[in-house]
């Protein structure tokens, strides 16, 4: 896979390349065959192979089915009771880097914070990316995302 050096800002990018070169050199000195032999030996000595299915028995399947029914029921009740108070984010989390300035503002508001960059964001007609946000703003955004997940 390609590394993402080109998306790093000037200064960090050059330093990262130098650091990477060093990490590559150090990793190349690791003896892969010795590591493989060591891992296999430790697995042989210290532990039985894990089994994906050892725990699956009729009793555990019945218990799992009961848990699924309970959790699904609780989720339905929770959704029904929270429907009125839920704060909905205006966009999907997966598209966060492509939010427009207006959408980002809506996220700040949803997180209960007033964006300190409201004026500067409003002054630009171009879309705002995460690169433009301060650390404090990133913290607010992360908190709002965590809230949306929970």
């Amino acid at each position, binding site marked *: *896979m*390609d*590394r*993402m*050096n080109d998306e*790093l*800002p000037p*200064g*960090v990018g*050059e*330093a*990262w390349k*130098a*650091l*990477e*070169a*060093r*990490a*590559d*050199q*150090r*990793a*190349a*000195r*690791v*003896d*892969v065959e*010795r*590591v*493989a*032999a*060591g*891992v*296999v030996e*430790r*697995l*042989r000595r*210290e*532990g039985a*192979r*894990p*089994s*994906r299915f*050892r725990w699956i028995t009729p009793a555990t399947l019945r218990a799992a089915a009961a848990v699924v029914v309970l959790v699904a029921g609780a989720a339905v009740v929770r959704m029904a009771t929270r429907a009125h108070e839920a704060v909905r984010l205006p966009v999907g*989390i*997966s598209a*966060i*880097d492509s939010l427009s300035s207006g959408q980002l503002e809506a996220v700040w508001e949803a997180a209960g914070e007033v964006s300190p960059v409201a004026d500067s964001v409003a002054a630009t007609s171009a879309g705002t990316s*995460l*690169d433009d*946000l301060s*650390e404090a703003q*990133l*913290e607010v*955004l*992360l908190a709002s*995302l*965590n809230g*949306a*997940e929970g």
Partner: protein
Amino acid sequence: MGVPALSVADDGDLIARYLAGEESAAAELVRRHATALARFIAAHGAPDEELEDLTQETLFKAFRALGTFRGGASFRTWLLAIGGNVLKDRRRRWRRNQVVALTPDIRDPSGDPGAQAEAGWTAERLQEGIAKLARLQREVFLMRAQQGLGYDEIAGGLGISEGAARVHYHHAVKRLKAWIA
């Protein structure tokens, strides 16, 4: 006439073969991923003398936990996440004896001594900065900058949302930029 394509087992096949009792499949998985894992661990600031041991420890823990691997991310990403956990346990010791003195082999290709000194200094500062990042910021940064992983893959490996992975990455970059400025 073309050369017939060699059949190369994917990670999933090797995992299944190991779980079925084929020990050589574990060795093959190690050969496939150990160098990338060692690079990841090295970039975290692990000292030279612990690098091979940490790589082996991470792989051993991964094989012991293989029954819990659900395929939400690739085996490589899952392995890096386990590496992050192993590193967490050693990090306190490293903080006590500030590790990885970057050696003069970090050089500017131009050969200019001034540029070499500058490259060495900024790389050292960056290494310090990476060590000071919050754990998730550091892991997301290294998974993306070093391993080239997409946010969806990183999110799957670390058990966070894709949006959170993006924010952690941008946070890390901002802090590193400020640190080496």
